[in-house]
Structure formats: structure tokens, C-alpha cells
């Protein structure tokens, strides 16, 4: 019997508030050490926390986006432990009463080898608000450690999944979907390099039909690639251990990107007793249904809803395209604006161009959607001219390239470059007559049953028209004339 892999993720998403979760200090990244550490961040004697409403609103948005239960009353608790970058000696978090309860996320797992792409629902256990710690700086201090408390008190939403993932690919698909979602609803900037979105992976292996294995938690994975590498390594390591007769000991481990290996940080026996208790400095967090409805009213259309709408627009065979178009809010908004310009009848063409040409150009230039040099209206302008037969597909690509490099509107570029295609039936007929006259042997072969030669005649005619002949018209006339 084969090994089954069981993975649950805990994701720390930094919430995009201007100020910290319990004080007014700035959350901006990259400032000089300790310049954003006010009296509360420093945990001076006598200071008190005051909850940032913006952080709660973002948690509510997340709950609404995942169909989760929102607790009308949740409680902040103190998680007590000593560490130099934890200035109070406790972290304010939520323990037995989190703000967001059970929810779910539908993930798209891409095709891999023989395995086709598929969808899967991952259950979310909970999400709770908490504050980040500061940073310990071990370099540059010659045997001492520096403490930077700028990050101390930055709001985090810790999002905990059920152990529903069965492969590194599923874990990555889940993390990507979550990453896209928190950016889509604008609660987190998703910047993984700056630590705005960090994953901890709980990994265990067992044989199907037997009890779950003992898990080890891989901490602080800050890229999708590391997440995948770390899980794959860990799974392999656990299987090897068990197969060589060793037991897995519950532990927290770190992933070393240089070696691609995980290494032990601490075992369960060494784990802290955090002595959680309700923080007496903060009142229970009460969320009224009015507040929830107010925020629901401000929510953008969510990716899953939009995906369904796009399938309706593009046809049922286009689930893949609909998924790609909704992988980020920027792309989906670009698509919607493009369709608005080009017309719903041309939606499929909009989708193909955005997924194809636009994405390829963005990748080539190292840009993301927000930095796209052409607007969806500009692109729609090109596609309209394909649809009304003003230009051919190849002409459209030339317009697109020019527009990308130099800007300008489609009609002006078509005019300037003389790309308007010939749709005058008389002119095309004359052209076709010339081609038939000039290639008698090929005509004979074609008429003798060599259908493949049709492409040859199209090529000759296109060449003669300098690419401007309307392809559909040309095909029709050619077919008629060749038939004799």
C-alpha cells in the first residue's frame, strides 16, 4: 500500500493597515531600525493596547470571502514566552475564541504529468488576529544581537487550514489561491519577500486506512518554491525514517533553502507552555451583524463568483481560461474592461488575447498586470477591428506590437501602417484569377484531389495582396474558383 501525505497549512498574512494593530505606529516596511517603535511597540512600563478597527475589518472581509462563520464575540489572549524581539514577554493573539471560524477555499491544482488539472475544496479551520514580533538581527553586531521593533505589533491574520492537502502541489495551489484571495479583497499586499505572506506547513505521512502519522511543522516558508521543496524533502525524509524503523517525533523544523533540507528546531518536549489567558487590557471583540453587512456591501465580486460569470460568458469549455483570468483581480478587471470595449460577442477573443499575447509580453518585459503599458480599452480597440474585418489577425498582432512599444490607438495605427485588409470581392477575385492562371500544374493537381494544396493558393494570394486580403473572403472565393 502506498504512502499518503497529509498537509495542513498555517498562513500568516500581514494586514495592510497603515498603523499597527494595537497602537498608532506606522507599519511601513524598510524604515531604519526602531524608528517605528513607539512607547507601545517598545512595551514601556504602563502602556496599553488599543485595537485597530481596520485590522478587524480586514479579518471580517476574509471571513466573508471564505464563507466562514464570523464570531459575534471573540477574545484576545496573551501568549506568554520570553524572546528579545517580543517586547512585552507575551504576544497578543486569539486562542479559543477566534474572530473567523470555519470556512473553505476551492483550489485549482494544475496538470502534472499524467495527472490532469482538478479542483479541490480545502476546509479552513479558523483565522485569528494577532500581532507580529520584532526582528532579531544577528549580523553586524560582533557577538551581540540587535533588536529592531519596527515590525513588533504589525497586524497579522493567521489562517489555519484543515489537514486536507495530499501533495506539495495541492499545498502550493492552496497557498497560491489564498495569496490571490487576500490581495483580491485588498487585505494584504502579498509581498512574500518582505514577509507579508508566510507559510508554516504541518506535514505527516501514513498508509491509507491507518491512523494519521505524527506531524512535523516546517516554519516560515516565504516562497511557493520553498514551500514545495520543503514539503517534498520532508515527506521523503519521513518515509525514509519510518521505512528504516524509526519513529517520527513531533517537532518544529526549519527549511534551509541553500541545502534544500529541513532541520530540527525543537521537539514537542521543548515546546513552550504559553500560558494563554484572556488579555485583561482588551475588551472582548464584538462584531455586530450591521457591521458585517456594511463590509459585505463594500466587498468586490469574489474570484469564484467571477469565474462562474466568465464561464457563462465564454462557454462551458472555457473553465481553464476563466480560472486564469481570475487568478488576480488586476487581470480579471482588465478582462472585464476589455470586454466592455470590444463587446460581449468578442469575449472569447478578449480572453485569448489577454491569456496569450498580453501575458506573454508582460512576462517578456518582466511586468505585472498593474504595470501593463496598454489599457484594456486600447486592446479592445484592436479586437473590434478584427471582428469587423478591418484587419487580419496578423495585422492585429502588428498593431498590438506597435501599441505596446509606442502607444497610440488601434485605428490610427492601422491607418498609419496601411494594415486595412482588402474586402472588395472584385479585387480579390481578380487576384485569385491571376494566381490560378500563373499556377496551372498546381491547379490540376488540386482538382485531381490533392486538397492539401489549398494552403499553397491561400499563401500565394495573401502574398500578392501583401497580407491585406480578408482571409475569410479569400478562402471562399478561392474555393469557388478552384472548384472550376
Amino acid at each position, binding site marked *: 500500500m502506498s504512502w499518503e501525505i497529509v498537509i495542513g497549512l498555517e498562513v500568516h498574512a500581514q494586514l495592510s493597515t497603515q498603523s499597527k494593530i494595537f497602537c498608532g505606529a506606522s507599519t511601513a516596511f524598510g524604515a531604519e531600525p526602531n524608528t517605528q517603535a513607539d512607547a507601545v511597540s517598545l512595551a*514601556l512600563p504602563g502602556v*496599553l493596547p*488599543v485595537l485597530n478597527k481596520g485590522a478587524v475589518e480586514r479579518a471580517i472581509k476574509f471571513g466573508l470571502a471564505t464563507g466562514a462563520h464570523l464570531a459575534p464575540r471573540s477574545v484576545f489572549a496573551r501568549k*506568554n514566552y520570553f524572546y528579545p524581539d517580543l517586547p512585552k514577554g507575551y504576544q497578543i493573539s486569539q486562542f479559543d475564541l477566534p474572530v473567523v471560524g470555519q470556512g473553505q477555499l476551492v483550489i485549482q491544482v494544475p496538470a502534472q504529468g499524467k495527472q490532469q488539472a482538478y479542483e479541490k475544496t480545502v476546509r479552513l479551520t479558523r483565522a485569528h488576529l494577532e500581532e507580529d514580533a520584532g526582528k532579531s538581527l544577528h549580523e553586524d553586531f560582533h557577538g551581540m544581537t540587535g533588536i529592531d521593533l519596527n515590525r513588533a505589533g504589525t497586524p497579522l491574520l493567521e489562517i489555519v487550514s484543515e489537514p486536507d492537502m495530499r501533495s506539495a502541489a495541492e499545498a502550493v495551489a492552496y497557498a497560491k489561491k489564498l495569496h490571490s484571495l487576500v490581495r483580491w479583497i485588498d487585505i494584504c499586499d502579498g509581498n512574500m519577500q518582505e514577509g507579508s505572506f508566510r507559510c508554516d506547513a504541518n506535514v505527516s505521512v501514513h498508509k491509507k486506512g491507518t491512523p494519521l502519522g505524527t506531524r512535523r511543522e516546517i516554519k516560515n516558508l516565504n516562497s511557493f518554491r520553498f514551500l514545495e521543496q520543503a514539503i517534498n524533502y520532508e515527506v521523503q525524509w519521513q518515509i525514509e525514517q519510518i521505512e528504516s524503523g524509526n519513529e517520527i517525533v513531533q517537532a518544529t523544523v526549519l527549511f534551509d533553502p541553500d541545502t534544500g533540507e529541513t532541520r530540527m528546531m525543537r521537539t514537542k518536549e521543548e515546546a513552550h*507552555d504559553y500560558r494563554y*489567558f484572556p488579555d485583561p487590557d*482588551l*475588551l472582548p471583540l464584538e462584531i455586530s451583524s450591521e457591521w458585517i453587512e456594511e463590509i459585505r456591501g463594500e466587498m468586490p465580486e469574489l474570484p469564484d463568483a467571477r469565474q462562474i460569470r466568465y464561464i457563462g460568458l465564454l462557454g462551458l469549455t472555457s473553465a481553464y481560461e476563466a480560472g486564469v483570468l481570475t487568478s488576480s483581480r488586476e487581470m480579471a478587471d482588465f478582462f472585464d474592461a476589455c470586454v466592455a470595449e470590444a463587446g460581449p460577442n468578442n469575449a472569447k477573443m478578449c480572453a485569448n488575447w489577454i491569456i496569450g499575447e498580453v501575458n506573454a509580453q508582460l512576462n517578456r518585459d518582466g511586468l505585472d498586470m498593474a504595470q501593463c503599458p496598454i489599457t484594456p480599452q486600447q486592446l479592445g480597440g484592436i479586437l473590434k477591428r478584427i471582428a469587423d474585418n478591418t484587419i487580419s489577425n496578423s495585422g492585429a498582432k502588428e498593431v498590438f506590437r506597435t501599441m505596446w512599444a509606442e502607444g497610440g490607438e488601434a485605428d490610427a495605427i492601422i491607418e498609419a501602417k496601411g494594415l486595412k485588409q482588402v474586402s472588395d470581392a472584385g479585387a480579390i477575385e481578380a487576384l485569385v484569377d491571376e494566381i490560378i492562371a500563373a499556377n496551372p500544374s498546381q491547379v490540376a493537381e488540386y482538382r485531381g484531389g490533392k486538397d492539401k494544396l489549398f494552403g499553397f493558393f491561400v499563401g500565394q494570394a495573401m502574398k500578392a495582396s501583401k497580407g491585406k486580403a480578408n482571409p475569410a473572403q479569400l478562402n471562399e472565393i478561392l474555393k469557388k474558383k478552384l472548384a472550376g
Partner: protein
Amino acid sequence: MFEKSLKQLGDALRAKKISSVELTQSYLDRIAKFNPELNAFITVNPEVSLAQAQAADERLAAGTAEALTGIPIAQKDIFCAKGWLTTCGSKMLSNFVSPYDAHIIAQFNNAGAVNLGKTNMDEFAMGSSNETSHYGPVKNPWDQTRVPGGSSGGTATAVAARLAAAATGTDTGGSIRQPAALCGISGLKPTYGVCSRYGMIAFASSLDQAGPMGRNAEDLALLLNTMAGFDERDSTSLQRDKEDYARDLEKPLNGLRIGLPKEFFAEGLDSDVAQTVEAAIAEYKKLGATVVEINLPNTRLSIPVYYVLAPAEASSNLSRFDGVRYGYRAPEYGDLTDMYEKSRAQGFGEEVKRRIMIGTYVLSHGYYDAYYLQAQKIRRLIAQDFTEAFKQCDVIMGPTSPSTAFKLGEKGDDPVQMYLSDIYTIAVNLAGLPGMSIPCGFGENDMPVGLQIIGNYFDEARMLNVAHQYQLATDWHSRAPQA
């Protein structure tokens, strides 16, 4: 001059009969003379105080003075005051100069009061005798072989010995009322949430409350007018309309219903205290009050409940004192853990360490439900007892402390005996109610006895009225120890 009430001092200042600089200097002189033996102050800063007095005089001259402008007031050393050494009575903070003002300090500064100095206290407010202070015990001015009570013992002695016109205290389990009783002054612990805790070094957050200590109820009302009020920096601060706590002082007491909890007059109460308190009740009857016996059945559990909850919160609140960012750090240590252990072992005194250990224990995995959660449940029952009692009476009265001031060192080796001296005050903190103590006579050793008055939530104005009317009819509050 040292016998004048705050109102009289304010009037004299506004009438230019005396300047704030003169008044402040005369208090500083008294402190210089008597503090070496009484040890009521940890820090005096004459230059800073006199500069504040100077500014107050300018304000008085400009006619923009408020009730407390120019009056020197001492501050318990638990309140962070910008530029002032703020020790909380601990070696741990013996080098901590606060870079910011507590809300209470800012309120006094805005009112133009002069900060006369920082008063001694039990370390981190943990104690009932002021013997746990890193800066040495405070002496009771009525008998210097005796304790002043605690934790606000420095404040109580300063006010009783006329080293300050008035002063602030904080009360987590009786720390305003018990020293007020033992030193023969008046003190009020307001309803939880009335005074902001911002900048008040936390002992047990859900119980801590700042309050005024002075020579009479009228002074307390003026002080509370300045101290009370909503502060957005404290999430437990209550958003209520500003009120004048002196508004009801002159109301007669006809028809006042006084509840006497039979549990407060039972075993453990010294007979001299019982007799003195009973005489005070008799006086109230003369003033038109009626008396009803009430039951507070769960108050007997106050001390065990308190000694679970307060240390639990304290063990966490005091974690920030780790030697990393400020405060005491051991001069020599090995690794990080060693630095923590040595800094905290050397920086905290025995009582603080005892409570950190109790608190850590009761919050530990496997013990939390049995201790902390259970204590929270009983806490609610204790509060319910009061709610029931206040259906039958307007105020509750009884002794503040089971005995008068005891001898220095007498209970030092027996923490439980020490904890029992707060037996009548702790339930009030657990319920979040306002409580006060006023002088009502003297016991066997000619030591002061305090009458405790407990009010319903937000009934401070009525309690002050009840106290003031008694003080109009008696003169216990104006007795002063021999210098």
C-alpha cells in the same frame, strides 16, 4: 497652612495670599526635614517642582487658573511622569526615567498642579505594609515603629504627615484604602474604568484602579474631578459624561440606607477596630441614616480568588521587565537565558517573585481550569453578592482593615497573615466597585481606624457626600500625628 483643604489653598493662591512657589517650597522644606526618617518619597526634584510652581503662578496671574492650579500634589511612583525617575518601588526600574506621562499625570499637569515628588510604595504595588519596596519601608507617622500599610504607603504617610497637600494612589486589592485607614487619612478607589490606567505600571490589569488620597472627602472630590475621565488609550476606560464629584457633598443623609455585611464583623476583626467602626455607624444613625444587615456570602473566597487572578495577570504583566530594552540588567551573564534569569532574579524582590511564580503556576497547562477559570467564576459570584446587597441599601459600610497599623517586620515572614489584612477590601476590586476609607477614630494603641464605604457602580459622588457629612459632624479626619 499645612492644615488647609485643597479648596482653601486654591482660594489663597487665586487671592494671591501665597504663591505656588512659596507653597511648593514650604512643602519641599517639610519633605527635606521629615522624609529622611519617614521615607515617604522615593524621588523629589525641587527644581522641576519649583519650575512647575513658577508656571502655575503665571497662570494664576493670568487668571486662567483651575481648582488645582499651583497646588503641590505627590504622585505614587507607579505613575510614569516624563523626565522623572519612575521606579514602581523596584530595583528593576531603579534606572528608569520615563519618556512619557501617564494619563493621570497629564491630567494634573493640564490642571496646573505641581508634581511634588514620587512616593514610596510596595514593589510593583505588591504588599500591604510598604515593606517590599526596594527603597526601604515607609514609617507610619503616628508611630514610626509601625507600618503605614500598602501598597500606597508612601502616599498615605506623606499626606498624614503633611508632607503633601494631597497625593495619588492605586488600588488593586486595597492599596489606597488600607494605608489610608492605617495612616488616618481619606482615600477613594473609584469604579473600575473611571480613571485611565494608561501610564500606570500594571500589577493586575483587571483590578488596578487609580484614585485620590487626601485629608478629607472634599479634597478627594476635587482630585477625582481632575483624575477621572475617558481616555482612548485605555480600552477599559469608560466612556461617560464628565461629572462633578463635589456636586452632592452638601446633601443631608436623611433616609440613607447603610448595609452592614455580617461577614465584615465576624472572626478575625480586632475588637478595638470593631468598636470604633460601630461608633461611626452610630454617628451615621444620628445623621439620619438607617442600618440594614446584609449578606456577602462569597466574600470569604475573596482572598483565594484574588491570589489566583492577581498573580496570574501580574506574572504576564511583569514579563516585559527582562533587561533587554530598559530597566535593570544583571552586570554579568552568559547566554540569553542566563541574562533573563539573572536580571530578573536580581531585579525583583521576594514578594514579586513569589507572585510571579504563583501566577505562572495557575496559568500553566493542566492547572488553568482548576485555578484561573474557577477563580473567574467565583469572581462573578462575588460581584453578584454586591448586586443583591445594593437592592437593600445605598452604601455598604464596615472596617477597612481588620486591625490598626501593625509593627514593622511583624508579618514579614508570613505572607498569608499579610494577605489577610486586605480581607475587607479585595472583594470590592474583584467586583469593580468603588470603595473608600475615611478616618473614624483610634484603636488601642492610639493608631487610626478606617471606616470603609462601598458604593454601587459610579456612585462616587454619593460616597463622597456620605463621607463629607460625617466629616462635618466629626473631627477624626483633621487629627494629625505629632511632628
